[in-house]
């Protein structure tokens, strides 16, 4: 038994599509302790959602796990049957998706959908289930819960729907909550409310959260650790302060530069990361970010950089960190 709630080691996963093998994850390793908040940041197609889905066994055909081990809460995900997986999903690990309208069933009431989870995973009586459903809606800050239970998803606003999704996810008090871009479809003011709610519930229930997003602003206040993903690799991992104040990978640096800052007063230009994301059908041989990197060196195109540890937690895979050594080497 490991000390970690989640321990993923050297995970490799591909999707076998008609046009070829899409290498979605190349050697991804990380772990989450109980009660920890991990942020996974990256652009679309970087593999951040796939990492989360594979943990729940949701990457069925044409996805295929090619290597590595996934451990969660004492289970080895690799060896689990579909039946065991069903027991685990929604019970020990839950997920909130980006768009609450498409993840709620439009033809069932809110109450129906909350009770379903409890019916499947607990031995509670009908009355207890009803009480728990009311309690859950109160927990996520929905007023008049008894009335809401009889309403349908279309009768609620976007923020309310996301609160219902959170209530469903929390029904069985999971050990891990996966939030896949939970606020991308919401307005800024609603986003602030939902993030506040999630942090509050985390403290109350003591669960771990895996926060997937492409918005660095969202992870800044919430997360203990951040993993930056690019083209199916974790290119940098560290504490929140490491990532924001001491970024070591060129992609992380670019990402931080490209976000609009609120503290500047004048009209400034944004500094984007030029170029387009990599094609995962034919990933490049060297560093995946090399084609968009301003400081690309010859070695970046040839070989993948090794993992460099800066301290116990902070690591990155970028040749720039060894630039001094490399230059010293060629001179000799």
């Amino acid at each position, binding site marked *: 038994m490991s000390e970690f709630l989640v321990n993923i080691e050297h995970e490799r996963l591909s999707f076998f599509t008609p046009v070829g093998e899409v290498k979605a994850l190349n050697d991804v390793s990380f772990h989450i302790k109980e009660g920890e908040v991990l942020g996974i940041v990256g*652009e*679309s197609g970087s593999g951040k959602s796939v990492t989360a889905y594979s943990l729940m066994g949701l990457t069925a055909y044409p996805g295929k796990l090619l290597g590595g081990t996934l451990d969660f809460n004492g289970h080895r995900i690799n060896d689990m049957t579909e039946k065991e997986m069903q027991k685990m999903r929604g019970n020990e690990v839950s997920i909130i998706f980006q768009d609450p309208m498409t993840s709620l069933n439009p033809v069932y009431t809110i109450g129906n959908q909350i009770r379903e989870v409890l019916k499947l995973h607990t031995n509670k009586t009908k009355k207890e289930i009803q009480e728990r459903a009311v309690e859950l809606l109160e927990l996520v800050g929905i007023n008049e819960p008894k009335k809401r239970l009889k309403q349908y998803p279309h009768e609620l606003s*976007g923020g309310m729907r996301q609160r219902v999704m959170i209530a469903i996810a929390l029904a069985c008090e999971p050990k891990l909550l996966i939030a896949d871009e939970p606020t991308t479809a919401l*307005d*800024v*003011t*609603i*986003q*602030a409310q939902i*993030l*506040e709610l999630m942090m509050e519930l985390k403290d109350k229930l003591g669960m771990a959260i895996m926060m997937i997003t*492409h*918005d*660095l*602003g*969202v992870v*800044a*206040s919430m997360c203990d650790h951040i993993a930056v993903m690019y083209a199916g690799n974790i290119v940098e991992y560290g504490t*929140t*302060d490491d990532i*924001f*104040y001491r970024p070591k990978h060129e992609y992380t640096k*670019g*990402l*931080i530069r*490209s*976000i*609009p*800052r*609120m*503290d500047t*007063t004048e*009209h*400034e*230009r*944004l*500094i*984007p*990361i*030029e170029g*387009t*994301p990599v094609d995962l059908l034919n990933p490049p041989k060297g560093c995946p970010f090399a084609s968009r990197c301003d400081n690309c060196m010859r070695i970046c195109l040839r070989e993948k950089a090794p993992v460099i540890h800066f301290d116990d937690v902070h690591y990155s895979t970028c040749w720039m960190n060894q630039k001094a050594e490399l230059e010293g080497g060629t001179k000799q």
Partner: protein
Amino acid sequence: MKNHENASPVLEVQGLKQYFRVSRTYTVKAVEDVSFKIYPGETYGLVGESGSGKSTIGRSVIRLYEPTDGKITFAGKDISGKISKADNKTLRTQMQMIFQDPMASLNPRKKVEDILGEGLDIHHMYANRAERKAKIQAILAKVGLAPEHAARYPHQFSGGQRQRVGIARAMIMNPKLIIADECISALDVSIQAQVVNLMKDIQEETGSAYLFIAHDLSMVKYISDRIGVLHLGHLLETGTTEEIFSNPIHPYTRSLLSAIPSPNPIVEKTRISENYDYRTSGLDYTKGTDHLISGSHYVKCTDEELERFLKH
């Protein structure tokens, strides 16, 4: 800041009202008495939450809806209500739109060159095939795409590239005004910055005016010269970008600004987002009139409300 003292506005919206009758007893008042002006070469950012009526304004301006009341003047001509076929035709070339989802707004069965050339074809804007091709190649280069991209289909592009095609389609007609409706919301942060920079560059070159509709205030700040804050169909606060960001008066604007998460953990830990709820705020938008704060900074409220705002 651009100086517009001598220029006449390219677009002037006066007292625009847009109601939608849902049933005999229920009418949605999407836009209530909104007025603003856009000058040549300027970007006007329209921000507000979903359902505030910002897209409706864009659609009314481009004549997708017939306004319930109010006047829309484009390049000195009244374009609200009925207009002649010829006027409509020139309007269609001089006002263009960029949409939110580039995949949904590009015809999946057409090659990029035909998507871009469609407007030219309809308005007979070239003498021969060679000129058409030259125009398409020129616009592709302008938005940072390669000449060989002309022969590709929309699905062969990434999200950012598709939005570049969307921009090229709007720009090829050489419009005076472009309505950009949430045109960067569906893109990744690093790509958003690319598109915003591109739009700014093109504006400097061509002098087109933009009506930039968005809910993300942080990006609006980088592209807009002036900003209008919209809530429940009312234009609550207008002013230059600096006026709005450094001195927000209306509690709704303040709540919008305070809700933006900062990409700086130290700042973020101390950020307090202000809550604002119209129903409990005790404000009445319908009674408000425009009050001048300074320069071109206006707030729509009653006298007593303004006093309350300024105490904060």
